[in-house]
């Protein structure tokens, strides 16, 4: 049986030959670097830097030729899955196609080479881009203003929660807790704690939706607000949202919208119209920016009018009239302050803007339509073998359970590993925690019917194999450079860096 993601010849991942670390390719005195001479009559280093500050320990950095370097990272890249290689149906991740035109745009020197301290008058093109993107994102969310400082969703969450706190405190109203559903993403409770609030969980009911009664129980004047993603982590739309909003507002709380699942509703329904006061978006999901193996992202935070004055400094100020300039407004007395070293992940926002301008209004709505279509279609193809945890239609993703295979000793993780051998990246497994043996699947709108048919066929085949030849499934994967790394050992015998000698 052949290998998946085989490194190229010369690095055959036979059990004996592991792929070397760049450090292991090092040879004393070999070099890739090429730098100018310290020029002219400048004083020598030892005249400039006192001995006490001069490095004394030698640095064990790799010494390689540029060709060594190029081959190492080229081959390393070939040992990795990617959207450009194949389908990536990770639930809650919206791994859709990242348009190449956006890479072109972000690479233009007029964007890529701008210094963050360049005066506003020098970066009008960049500011106009951000201004237009802000207006569009506010329109799409039904919010008034936003900040681009948050570098990712979690940072957006913290920013929003700090604004929630500033809002309450501005009314001399100190509150202690923020409510989240038990199915919430881990960053929600983590951000709540970081903002100095207590996270209180409310259960989902048998519909997989927020238990309205339990919520009402939990709500009180200690409640700063509620964090919710809608559709929720189970891919279901919280249809009671109006009632939920009313109940939260009733006790003076605010509603925070976790925009990680925004992809499924863009152009169809707006968080603002559902009653949300604060919204973060994951542009690295909904707006198709490349995920870079774990980042960068961009998590702009949008708020309704009554929260506007608390936005981080600076905020963008549009030209008052023609001839005026775009500028950063630092005169924000009620601002919570700064949350990023500079202006956030600008390069990612350029990509998001490019995507926005490529789609237009119809395109934006269509991504939601097709994302939901793809998810429901896939769901219908595998429902009999991997039933969904909760009844009803899903939005852009759904959570199935593999618990039916347990009696053959096959676990959700085994299904995932076997799927790799059949040529697909597995869905998210064991999340959300509220579903046993969870398989959380999000095909996204850019996958074709053929790809989804193939994925479904593979999943159904695995379900059959679980009965007929469970060992085949439990023994997977066999087509990858490495197989089932020992994670327990990794955490027990810590090897977190290469060390010389």
């Amino acid at each position, binding site marked *: 049986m052949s290998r998946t*993601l085989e490194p190229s010849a010369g690095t055959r991942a036979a059990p004996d030959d592991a792929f070397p670390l760049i450090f292991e390719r090092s040879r004393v005195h070999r070099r*890739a*670097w090429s730098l*100018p001479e310290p020029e002219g009559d*400048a004083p020598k*280093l030892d005249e400039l830097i006192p001995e006490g*500050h001069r*490095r*004394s320990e030698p*640095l064990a950095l790799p*010494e390689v030729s540029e060709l060594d370097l190029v081959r190492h990272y080229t081959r*390393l890249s*070939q040992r990795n899955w990617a959207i450009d290689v194949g389908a990536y149906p*990770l639930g809650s991740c919206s791994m859709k196609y990242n348009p190449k035109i956006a890479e072109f745009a972000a690479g233009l020197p*007029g*964007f890529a080479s*701008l210094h*963050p301290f*360049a005066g506003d008058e*020098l970066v009008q093109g*960049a500011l106009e*881009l951000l201004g237009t993107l802000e207006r569009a994102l506010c*329109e*799409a969310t039904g919010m008034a203003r936003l900040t681009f400082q948050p570098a990712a969703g*979690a940072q957006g969450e913290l920013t929003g929660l700090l604004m929630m*706190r500033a809002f309450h405190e501005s009314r001399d109203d100190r509150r202690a807790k923020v409510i989240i559903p038990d199915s919430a993403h*881990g*960053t929600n409770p*983590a951000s709540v704690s*970081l903002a100095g609030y207590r*996270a209180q969980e409310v259960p989902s009911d048998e519909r997989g939706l927020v238990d309205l009664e339990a919520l009402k129980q939990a709500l009180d004047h200690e409640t700063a607000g509620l964090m919710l993603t809608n559709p929720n982590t189970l891919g279901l739309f919280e249809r009671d949202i109006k009632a939920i909003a009313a109940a939260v507002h009733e006790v003076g709380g605010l509603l925070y919208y976790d925009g990680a699942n925004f992809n499924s509703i863009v152009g169809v329904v707006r968080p603002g119209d559902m009653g949300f006061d604060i919204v973060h978006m994951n542009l690295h999901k909904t707006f198709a920016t*490349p995920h*870079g*193996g*774990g*980042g*960068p992202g961009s998590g702009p935070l949008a708020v309704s009018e009554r929260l506007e004055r608390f936005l*981080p400094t600076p905020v963008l100020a549009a030209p008052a009239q023609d001839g005026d300039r775009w500028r950063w407004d630092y005169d924000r007395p009620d601002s919570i302050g*700064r*949350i990023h*070293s500079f*202006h956030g992940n*600008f390069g990612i926002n*350029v990509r998001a803007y490019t995507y926005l301008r490529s789609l*237009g209004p119809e*395109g934006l709505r*269509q991504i939601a*339509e097709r994302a*939901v*279509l*793809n998810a429901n279609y896939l769901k219908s193809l595998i429902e009999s073998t991997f039933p969904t945890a909760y009844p009803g*239609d899903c939005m852009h993703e759904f959570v199935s359970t593999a618990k039916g295979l347990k009696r053959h000793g096959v676990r959700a993780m085994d299904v995932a590993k076997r799927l790799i051998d059949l040529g697909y990246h597995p869905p998210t497994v064991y999340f959300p925690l509220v579903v046993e043996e969870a398989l959380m699947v999000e095909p996204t*709108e850019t996958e074709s019917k053929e790809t989804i048919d193939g994925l479904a066929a593979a999943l159904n085949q695995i379900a059959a194999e679980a009965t007929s030849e469970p060992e085949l499934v439990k023994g997977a*994967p066999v087509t990858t*450079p490495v*197989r089932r*790394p020992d994670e327990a050992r990794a955490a027990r015998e810590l090897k*977190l*860096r*290469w060390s010389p000698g």
Partner: protein
Amino acid sequence: MDFLPHTPEDVAEMLAASGFEDIDALFASIPAEVKLGRALDVPPALSEPELAAHMAELAARSAHGSDLVCFAGGGAYDHHVPAAVGALAGRAEFATSYTPYQPELSQGVLQAVFEFQSLVCEIYGMDVANASLYDGANALVEGVNLAVRATKRERVLVSAGVHPHYRDVLKTYTSGLGLDIHELGHDDTGALDPGTVDPTGAAAVVVAYPNFFGRLEDVRTLADRAHEAGALLVCVTDPTAMGILRSPGEMGADVAVGEGQSLGNLLSYGGPYVGLFATKLELVRQVPGRIAGETVDADGRRAFVLTLQAREQHIRRAKATSNVCTNQTLMAIAAAVHLSWLGPQGLARLGEVCARRTAAAARRLAEIPGCKIRFEGPHFKEIVLQTPLDAATLTRALSARGFLVGPPLGTWYPDLENCLLVAVTEKRTSAEIDALAEAIEKELAQQ
């Protein structure tokens, strides 16, 4: 252009197969009352040729490297990014991959991150590094939060020589936690006088090395004093200085953090950059964010995985060491490639060239009548230029003459009203330094 693969036939078949009347039926679970019911009011779609032209036009209305000679600093620097770095870190298999949750399909990213961690540990003189944080400010915040958890104290002493933006972010980030943050002013050499620092009861003493003025703090003494008082020393460190300066680890720092933009990442108007975070092994369970670790696979082959995840939000949730999830992995990979391109000699040369050209610039600029370098003594990559003019005015005037300098320091340091930063990287030639000096002379003559 919408990048959607569905043919009309596909849509029809898929709707039928999954039992939907039409597209709208897919959204039946959304109450009508909240639905938008109109098209979004956003700019119309552009075809790719139109879009490319539009983006080029926008970009052309911003002034970049080839328009202005960049002597600007303040935490973002115009270093050379080796062509190989862009070509390799930009490989689609790195750029379009997700977080390495399935190690079998992610050895490329996982090993690159492991190498990144190893390189960061090596230059900072530390045992453990994480897979990256958002930026320098965020890394500093996480360093302080680690110290607070580790010492169970809430008092934090921060040198005024730490980037003003980082200090702002620290205040904002921790405003909900009610830490009590004290600022430590610099003396007239632009550095912190260890004698004036009283770390009693403090969780952390935070300094920058080199500091915001390009000056070298006495980190070792500060570390000793901090340790005597049971506090940790958190050191914001410029990685490009590590080829010639002692590592924070060697000088006794407990946590080394920094901005990694200078390592293979473009200026990009302030982001995406990469936060570097490293510390000692004892503190590993307090480390925020992802960590790649080495292990073996089912066949005994070396393999890499995300490890110690019990620290993280997706497992520990409200009790996690941090809320960070998506980080800046791609920038970390670029930094790893750049550091491997440099190697020990290259990093030393980079530091030497920056230091010596900065010294040359300091000497030349000091010759300008009415100007002086505000602080005496050793500098790295950055100097504080004091001018007879208002610094902001001069900065604007110089950009009109083709030079980007600054930032001016008055906003953050009242005592530095007429001062601005001038940064000198390996890209700046002596000819450019002379030209800058002459431009300033001309400008001053005009006033």
